[in-house]
């Protein structure tokens, strides 16, 4: 049953499913657990993944705003392992590497990814309308929700950082304030979703086409009065500024980092960052880190 040929991607997945279903009540806090049981009277080790590499059916992949696409794939039984801040590595035809894309939101049997067309890979991805895609994930460590209930949140999103910030927002027990900066009005996505959740949203655009003209961190500096937890996801220059502000105002929180990555699982070591004086991998140890520990 667990002979050599059973270990195609799909089968690892289904073995995992099988055992995961059986031990559903256990709490899985580590990346994976090892189970021992007997197959043909020999001891077999089965590792129970919380990350999976499989082919999933595309439900839709439509342009939600010029240059921005939302990909929805059908994924059963994996969504339970997803948490805000995590991402998947998505295979794209014709390019060599998979593309890391963070989770935008999760339903019981589907996952959504919101992405911007920025290069060859995302361009090709945006043209795929049906069929399946190979996805590896969920990957990385998301936001650590422990002891958040008393907090007053301020959330900062820059550009496509909004994609995973929205997922986070859906999981928070109370509303916060969203500071959302983009290049231009046409780059603002998800606003309707935050409004539907009754979030207070402060907007800035670099060209002034909507909201404050300038960087969102300028606005952030003026706010933050009652904030006890600061969360930020966006381009590195923005994060640098956010970290600086958090330091000055002595506010704790989290930032979600981004770097070029080849594998998404810690093997290529491309996405290194200094955390508390130590080299860490964004893909594996992050992408979410404690704001006070990040050195950018």
């Amino acid at each position, binding site marked *: 049953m667990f002979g*050599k*040929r059973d*270990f*195609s*991607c799909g089968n*690892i997945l289904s073995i995992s499913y099988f055992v995961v279903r059986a031990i559903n009540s256990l709490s899985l806090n580590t*990346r*994976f657990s*090892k189970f021992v049981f007997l197959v043909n009277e020999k001891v077999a080790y089965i*590792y*129970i*993944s*919380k*990350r999976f*590499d499989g082919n999933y059916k595309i439900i839709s992949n439509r342009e939600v705003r010029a240059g921005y696409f939302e990909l929805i794939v059908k994924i059963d039984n994996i969504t339970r392992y997803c948490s805000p801040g995590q991402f998947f590595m998505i*295979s794209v035809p014709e*390019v*060599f*590497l*998979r593309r890391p894309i963070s989770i935008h939101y999760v339903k019981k049997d589907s996952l959504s990814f919101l992405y911007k067309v920025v290069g060859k*890979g995302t361009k090709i991805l945006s043209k795929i309308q049906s069929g399946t895609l*190979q996805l*590896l994930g969920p990957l990385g460590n998301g936001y650590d929700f422990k002891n958040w209930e008393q907090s007053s949140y301020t959330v900062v999103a820059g550009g496509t950082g909004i994609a995973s910030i929205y997922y986070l927002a859906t999981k928070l027990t109370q509303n916060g304030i969203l500071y959302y900066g983009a290049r231009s009005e046409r780059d603002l996505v998800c606003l309707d979703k935050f409004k539907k959740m009754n979030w207070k949203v402060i907007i800035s655009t670099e060209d002034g086409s909507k909201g404050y003209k300038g960087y969102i961190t300028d606005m952030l500096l003026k706010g933050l009065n009652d904030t006890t937890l600061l969360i930020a996801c966006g381009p590195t220059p923005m994060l640098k500024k956010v970290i600086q502000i958090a330091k000055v105002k002595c506010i704790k929180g989290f930032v979600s980092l981004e*770097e*070029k*990555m*080849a*594998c998404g*699982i*810690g*093997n*290529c*070591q*491309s*996405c*290194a*960052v200094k955390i508390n004086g130590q*080299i860490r991998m964004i893909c594996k140890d992050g992408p979410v880190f404690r704001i006070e520990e990040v050195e950018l």
Partner: protein
Amino acid sequence: MKPDLSIVFANVKFKNPVLTASGTFGYGYELADLIPLEKLGGIITKTITLKPCDGNLQPRVAEVTSGILNSIGLQNIGIKSFIEEPLEKLKKLGVPVIVSIAGASVSEYVETAKILSCQNGISAIELNLSCPNLEKKIVCHDLSLVQNIIKEVKKISKIPVIAKLSPLVTDISELALAAENQGADGITLTNTYPAMAIDIKTFKSKLSTLKGGMSGACVKPMSIRCVYDAWQSISIPIIGCGGIMTGEDAVEFMLAGATAVSVGSSSLVSPINLIKIINEIEDIMIKKNILSIKNIIGMVNKNEKNNTCS
């Protein structure tokens, strides 16, 4: 009949010829949840140095056509920490472990090899000879340095020593022969290809170090050529490396003269490819009625006579 995939490399027995390539599979034990590690022929760890190393600045990778440029800068926890934790975990996998090492000088290589040589559970040492030397040149571009490193490491090592060579040399056969003459028990061909990519939006290099090493499907035909040429000059075995994405690619390297192969970029793209490659080799053997994979090593050399032109 089930074909025999086992090979012997430098007196070490491997149940199949598919190894992980150094620097692309972490310390070697981390992906146990994603692929059955015990099915691998062997694991070559990331390169370990005497002292911990932080590696290079960002960005460290860039995608190119059918490949990847990298400039990681040998980031690792150092030999002392490696022995404490990763090596302990590796030993339990039941798969031959080859530890890749590097240094900026002969003495660094020797000292690191000495420490490893006292450990149990290591099948061989692979010398990464494509790292920068003290003058920031690639070690392999200094023939006498290469010779010294191999000679001195061999003096103190109790386990086989494999020299991983850079392909960017005028005469790969000469370099391979030099490794053999200094006592190397095998060579790995090849390490990455020096390359560069410039961002057309910023007019700057895509890597912090400006240049990096290219790997992936794009380099395969060049590494096949290196294996083919070296095989004719040496009698020690070769680990073929460079752009192996499928079982066919692995067989191609073995036909050119490789006894084993190491798979790198392909497993970065999809770790399960390592297992697929092993299965595909078996499929090819069944289809071509090859009883033992050992029988095809260097077969293309035996099949053909060299024509005069090129």
